[in-house]
């Protein structure tokens, strides 16, 4: 196949399939954080801080996919 077509197709696939996992994981993090907050509103500060930290770690996986897409799209001729 044409190399440009393959490159564009792969960038599109990275954007759609690669970013599904982190999105799902972040939704699960929010779900569990809200569950814990509803059961125990007093621990709200600690739950929120932990949630932000874990969300940042999970977001990094999505960023790895984004880096691959950027490198493919802009650096590879």
């Amino acid at each position, binding site marked *: 196949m044409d190399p440009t077509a393959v490159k564009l197709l792969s960038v599109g696939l990275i954007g759609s399939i690669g970013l599904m996992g982190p999105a799902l994981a972040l939704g699960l993090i929010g779900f569990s954080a809200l569950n814990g907050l509803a059961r125990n509103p007093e621990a709200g500060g600690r739950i929120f801080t932990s949630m932000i*930290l874990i969300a*940042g*770690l999970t977001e990094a996986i999505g*960023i*790895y996919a*984004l*880096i691959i897409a*950027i490198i493919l799209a*802009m*650096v590879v001729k």
Partner: protein
Amino acid sequence: MAKTKRGCLGCSLPVAIIIVVVLLALFLIGFIAGPVGQSLFGNILPRWLSVPEPEIELPANVLFYIFGFPVTNTLITTWITMVFLVVFSIAATRKMKIIPGRMQNLFESLLGFVYNLCQDVAGEKNGRAFFPVVCTVFLFVGFNAWLGLIPGYNSLTLNTAEGVVHVLRPANTDFNTPLAIAISAVVAVQLYGLKTLKFKYVQKFFNFGRIFKSFGFLFKGKVMDGVIELVTGIVEALVGFLELISELVIHIISFTFRLFGNMTAGEILLMMIGFLVSMLVPIIFYGLEMLIGFIQAIIFAGLTLIFLTTAVSHHEEEHA
């Protein structure tokens, strides 16, 4: 005296309507002058209202050479951040009072936040010992990200031999700065672990104690015990080796790519939004970028703190 009618947000209704109309007009002008409006309506607005198409390049551009050492635009922004932090610290601690003035209060709240985080995670004594490293990482990464949003970064250009380059570029978007901070953090973790636990820290990675014990069993004739100990010893040695690779290699890679990816994606997003709709909409994305910069600084510093804590804590006996 008659009270003005309290319309929306405290101003009277005519003033609110004027403000909304002005904002809407700005948004429409920005939309029409951008590429979407130009493809719909043609070039009806003058040239100075539209933004040229941004060229995104990942490696940093070299501005000039000092004795053969290339000085890139991100290196200059790193120097600016360092000077800013030093000046800010000196200005905040010059005449310290018990009831602090405004600058000292701001500085105290920032440091107090990081200090409470250190003590929550690492305990009293260790928190005090880890505070300088963690706070340096937090302040450097945070102010690199925040200072990169001031107008002037990514807009002032210079004509060098390779074309038109930006003079200032946010420091975290160059791959080298997150790599340098990550290497410093990982080296600090290993040094603290070695200093506190001395030989037992190396034993965490090279775990051959069980294999030697199994040889002792085999010599004494207890074959069954010896074989079991040998197998578990080999498994433990492999786990220790895996932990070594995870500590040294994977932490550096994940630290670097997390910070670099977030900051580069944010920079590209801001450039694209500024290109598409040049007025009013970038404000929302500036807010998002400020939040992301702050969160990334907290994550970097918090992860360094957690790795320091686990490196210093004595390994309890996990296997009964």
